[in-house]
């Protein structure tokens, strides 16, 4: 199957354009209390691409992801997935999601948790696809285990399998390995790449780990906080499949260093508590533009 072209999921005459954000803004509150969380973000993630949203906490990357997931509505602008509103995508059961908290239902087994989206979509529950996915995420032998009996890493694997079971057009990952230790995180990143390469689903990953973003993504979108803005869209030059040896390669470090500079020059990584809310633009933003 070529995941890039699936004629059934496309309206006739429509371009293959993946995820598109046009001037998206998000303000919380009203009047004087209004706080701009996201300030006019425009992005384009082609179909089948892997995009990482990178930034310090409070930069609105999770809010952005929640808007793409139709969990929150933008105050302004438009979000389109293959030309359709995220709500339509969601209602057509074409979206997959995994959060930092695995959000597995504790009374269901691994297998049954992975089946849940199929039940919601009222699709036939094919045992083969469930088993294949459990295999893919490396949980064979734990089909009947309850989430409480699994380690944190295994729970996240199950959550990712659940996110993929509908063969979604859009996969949203909100720091899925954020609560895991560094070693487990690296291992799962390599596996996530392998899983992703088998399906090549349009994917958006929210992370605050520079290495994770560079290792996984085709494009790293660097964001600055208060209000959330795009500082830079960085195209990652490395070939796939990326091996773990890449993590120690000088060009990998160069890329990471570059992104670190972008992040720090925006003042976003300093004590963010001192930068108070409101809609005042951050002074450093211009310097960053100059440097890129």
């Amino acid at each position: 199957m070529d995941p890039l072209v699936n004629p059934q999921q496309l309206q006739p005459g429509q371009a293959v354009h993946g995820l598109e954000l046009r001037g998206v803004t998000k303000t919380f509150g009203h009047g004087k209390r209004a706080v701009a969380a996201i300030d006019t973000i425009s992005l384009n993630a082609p179909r089948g691409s892997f995009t990482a949203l990178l930034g310090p906490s409070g930069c609105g990357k999770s809010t952005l992801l929640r808007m793409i997931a139709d969990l929150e509505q933008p105050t302004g602008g438009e979000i389109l997935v293959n030309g359709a509103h995220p709500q339509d995508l969601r209602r057509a059961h074409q979206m997959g999601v995994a959060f930092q908290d695995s959000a597995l239902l504790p009374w269901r087994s691994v297998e049954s948790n992975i089946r849940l989206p199929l039940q919601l979509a009222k699709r036939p529950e094919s045992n083969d696809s469930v088993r294949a996915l459990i295999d893919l995420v490396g949980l064979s032998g734990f089909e009947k285990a309850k989430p409480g009996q699994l380690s944190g890493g295994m729970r996240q694997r199950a959550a990712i399998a659940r996110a993929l079971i509908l063969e979604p057009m859009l996969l949203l990952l909100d720091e899925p390995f954020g609560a895991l230790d560094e070693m487990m995180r690296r291992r799962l990143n390599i596996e996530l790449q392998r899983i992703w390469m088998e399906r090549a689903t349009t994917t958006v990953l929210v992370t605050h780990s520079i290495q994770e973003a560079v290792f996984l993504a085709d494009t790293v979108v660097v964001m600055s906080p208060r209000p959330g803005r795009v500082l830079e869209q960085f195209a990652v030059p490395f070939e796939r499949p990326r091996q773990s040896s890449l993590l120690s390669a000088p060009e990998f470090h160069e890329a990471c260093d570059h992104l670190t500079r972008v992040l720090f020059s925006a003042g976003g990584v300093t004590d963010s508590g001192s930068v108070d809310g409101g809609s005042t633009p951050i002074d450093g933003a211009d310097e960053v533009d100059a440097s890129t």
Partner: protein
Amino acid sequence: MTAIQFVGRPPTKFRLRGPMISAAIIIAIIAIWELLAVTVFSGRFVVPAPYSVLRQAHRDDYYLSDLRTTLGIAWKGYLLGNLAALVLAAICLVAPVTEGALTTLGVATYCVPTIAVGPLLVVLYGGGGAKMVMSALSVFFITLVAAITGLRAASPTSLEVITVFGGSRWQQLARVRVRASIPILASGLCVAAPAAILGAMIGDYLGGDRGLGVVMLQAQQQLNVPRTWAIALVSTAACAIAFGLTAVLARRAGAHVDAALDSGLTRRSVRRPVPATIALTALRIVGAVVFGLLVWEVLIKTTGLSSYFVKSPRDVWRYLFDGPKAIARRHVIDENLTRTLQDAGRGWLAGTIVAVIVASVLVMVPRVGTAVMPFVIVLRSVPLIAMCPLLGLVFGRGVVGVTIIAGVVTFVPSLVTIVGGLRTAPSSATDVIHCFGGARFAALIDVRIPFSTPSLFAAAKVSMPGAVLGSVLAEWLITGHGLGHSMAYDIITSNYAELWTSIALLLVVSLALYMVVGFAENGVRRKISGS
């Protein structure tokens, strides 16, 4: 234990939206009341229009002096009950071994039908004293639960910090536990304040010549409908003010009151092998029975009352199983108990079903939930059981009347607990359902309701004895059948052996319900927590 936060979704557009919706709801309630009074209930003389209630209240100017009498009893009961509860909680903390026995005692005070022990308290302490003790009894369990839960509420890490820095258990208590217990304890004290008034009013139903309960019962017996309503409104207002005032004081003292205590005590569950659990449970039940009998005997010995009034466990046993009349006695009591349990069960079932449905709506439509929840909390502080005469007047002396009384007593506390339970589902789990294209209803069925099952059991644990008490009171005051009625009759005919037997049976049944449902709750909780 459930902590309810009244924030469904913060108002985004106007800050005044919440109060405006509340005001709209109040106006709508009055309008519907007026409308019902002149349409459906017109000519049936049970639901007077708001206007005629106000006119009646204006004409009768004696409510305030009755209110003063009731409050004069209630505040003493409040102090007494709270003091006893705090002392017991302190003992539990100092000597954790006693916790099982002492909490069982607390549950027993909650399960005992206060109206039935009332006459005995009158003999012991006189009219005023009895009402005070009944008021204290209504307070005791609420504060005990709050105090014990509060003292356990400290986070393990904050306790470990004290230990690591070389602090003792005592310092853990002084520096962490006491401070951490304040929010829950304050919530308990708030809920206990209207409960004290409720206890005093139930005391009033035993007799006396002053007090809100006395005049309300008189008004009901005279079929003076507007007056019954007016007194009900006055007592409701008194309870709401008592709740609000305590909450304001607590906030002044630095405790933000946001929890509604309705779910009783939940034992910390410890994982043990099944045979050990069964053995321990059996041991605990035997211990509770032995302890209960001991307390009973001690009470008899210390009060020094004649055996004419006070019957020992042995007397009850003889009454039920000794002599040629025993079979006939058992038959009568069995019939009455069955009737009472049917009344209570029907009401409980109806109240619980309605509570689940309403709670689901409140949680699924957050905007409605945010607007309605404050009213539910006010309703929670209304002395519902004390509204028995009014409900009897409106819904009649038949099955419907009793069912509604037991149902209403079940509904309100269950609603608060179940809403809290439905909100315990982690937001990520409902978000996942949302993203996979599931409807809100799917999130309710697949995530929220399973996550809330422990709270369903917690609600049942507390509302079942409540429903029993409600139906006993309804039978006592209104319907004229069942165990409630036979106990009232026992007092008139001085049949104290039967009275004691009835109380003991009711206590055993209520306690058993509380314990069985409590065990089920623990089982479900363990399953949900996934360990």
